[in-house]
């Protein structure tokens, strides 16, 4: 009994020590994080999934540039995730100085739901505020065993298609709209036939990942599906990095011009006093240096001269814009992706049988 008592006193002091120590750690950590801020400028770039590799390099280049011009260190912090959930986080208070998202609809939401940016945000920078563009292509397994040549092949019964859920993934919305636009072209604008075409493709989808990167993993890691509808840049990344010689890119006859836009988040930069550097950060995306970097990461530069230098990488295909084919993002979102929209109807149809 005596023995246990002494060991308990020891335990008591240990417990007290642990609690004290942990509070000390907490206090220390909080105070250091407060101190670090005054010495340099911090920017937060909230972006979507596939831009990680590009912005990692770009941030370094920009920081160097800013250091030379203004003799000031700038530290760009990154946040990546699904485009929609990233937009939501900014509306809910994530302190982004700039957003670089997958589609204009998610940026529009910053104005509509959070009043964080002005309505005309998209006209503030060249090319609809998209310093780089991309398109939607088809990725198939080596040798193209199912002989997939164009969008038409996706409705075949023997083909399994991988694409993420357009309700949650920005990239998947581009995929869906590329299909829809192709259908309109093919059926001369007949909505009913287009609907039927798109429905048949989605009937061949065995997995609807919530985000684009998850879908890539499904296709590449789990070897599920015969064809993967992907961003052009993601398709290149898969071919080059995930499995050399294991995949082939099939360029369809017609696709959509995907414009991932960028903007300064006015409400945040004005509060934090970072407008100047945030605007410079976005302007710099249009310089030759950054455009080359974008091309290196398989984004199509918007500068036509630089794009021409990479014409080997980026095959010339007919691209339509969302404004031409679908009357803009607001309209496309309302008709197709909102609750009760066309995509919901497709799902209901497929599962009614």
């Amino acid at each position, binding site marked *: 009994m005596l023995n246990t008592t002494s060991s308990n006193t020891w335990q008591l002091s240990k417990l007290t020590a642990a609690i004290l120590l942990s509070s000390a750690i907490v206090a220390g950590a909080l105070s250091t994080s407060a101190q670090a801020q005054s010495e340099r400028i911090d920017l937060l770039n909230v972006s979507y999934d596939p831009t990680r590799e590009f912005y990692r390099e770009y941030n370094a280049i920009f920081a160097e540039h800013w250091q030379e011009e203004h003799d000031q260190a700038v530290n760009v912090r990154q946040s990546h995730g699904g485009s*929609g959930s990233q937009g939501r986080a900014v509306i809910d208070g994530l302190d982004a100085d700039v957003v670089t998202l997958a589609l204009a609809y998610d940026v529009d939401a910053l104005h509509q739901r959070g009043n964080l940016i002005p309505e005309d945000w998209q006209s503030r920078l060249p090319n609809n505020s998209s310093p780089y563009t991309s398109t939607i292509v088809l990725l198939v397994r080596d040798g193209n065993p199912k002989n997939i040549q164009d969008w038409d092949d996706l409705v075949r019964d023997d083909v399994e298609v991988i694409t993420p859920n357009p*309700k949650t993934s920005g990239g998947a919305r581009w995929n869906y709209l590329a299909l829809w636009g192709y259908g309109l072209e093919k059926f001369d604008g007949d909505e009913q036939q287009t609907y039927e075409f798109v429905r048949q493709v989605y009937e061949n989808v*065995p997995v609807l990942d*919530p985000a684009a990167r998850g879908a890539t993993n499904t296709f590449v890691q*789990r070897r*599920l599906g015969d064809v993967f509808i992907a961003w052009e840049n993601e398709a290149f990344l898969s071919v080059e990095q995930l499995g050399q010689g294991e995949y082939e890119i099939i360029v369809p006859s017609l696709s959509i011009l995907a414009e991932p836009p960028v903007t300064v988040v006015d409400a945040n930069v004005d509060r934090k006093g970072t407008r100047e550097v945030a605007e410079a950060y976005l302007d710099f995306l249009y310089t030759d240096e950054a455009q080359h970097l974008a091309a290196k990461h398989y984004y199509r530069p918007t500068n036509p001269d630089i794009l021409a230098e990479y014409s080997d990488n980026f095959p010339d295909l007919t691209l339509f814009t969302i404004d031409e084919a679908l009357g803009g993002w607001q309209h496309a979102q309302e008709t197709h992706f909102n*609750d009760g929209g066309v995509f*919901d109807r497709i*799902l209901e149809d497929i599962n009614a049988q």
Partner: protein
Amino acid sequence: MAITLVKRRVIPGFGLTMGFTLLYMGLVFLIPVGAFLLYTTTMSWETFWNAISQRQVVASYKLSFGGSLIAATINLVFGGLVAWVLVRYRFPGKRLVDALVDLPFALPTAVAGIALVTLYASTGWVGQYLDVFGIRVAYTQLGVVIALTYIGLPFVVRTVQPVLEDLEAELEEASASLGADRLTTIRRVIFPALFPALLTGYALAFARALGEYGSVVFISGNLPFRTEITPLLIVSKAEQYDYHGAAAIGTVMLVAAFLMLLIINGLQWWASRRHG
């Protein structure tokens, strides 16, 4: 009764501990949950009802509740068995096995999901053999059940184990000396004693499975109407800026969870009256 009254005065600290308990629970959990429920009352009954009764949402309830029920049942049977084996039998490596049971508590759910899909995909270590028999686990409802079984596994084992350890051997011996054979003893003596613990474990495993998100999204196909669980639908609503819809479905889950716990409590109370 008079004695308990005196005793109650002997032990101090009721005010302090109860005060802290309520304060902490209030701040961390009761006030936020209350505020959340209040938030759902800001929408009209019609909006609420529409949000929770869409066909796609109802299909997700079926999968979430059905899958959790199956997973909890698997855990009830095998978890009970594991607890029995760990308490009553001796075999090499027993201590290690006993320790491993806590793994699903300790391993982050996202990691568990990635590990499970790596195993059970048709290219995986286990999946490739199941594939031969035409059994597909990953991206099907079966995959959802597997993930839910995994995360609920420790609950039944850990609630039954201590009761089984405390179960006095005298009871079984008494039963045996009265001439009962083993099966009768198990049925009439051991099982009733374990029943409340089994039930608690079952209900906890069920409740935990109902809300699980991290591990399921990796192994499920996430196809609306087929392999989409309710928590995923909540996330997806929130990401479409539909907070009302998300909150409405979230409320359904909250109420289900609370009912579940009330039922457990009721059953435990009933069982303890019957056997205590």
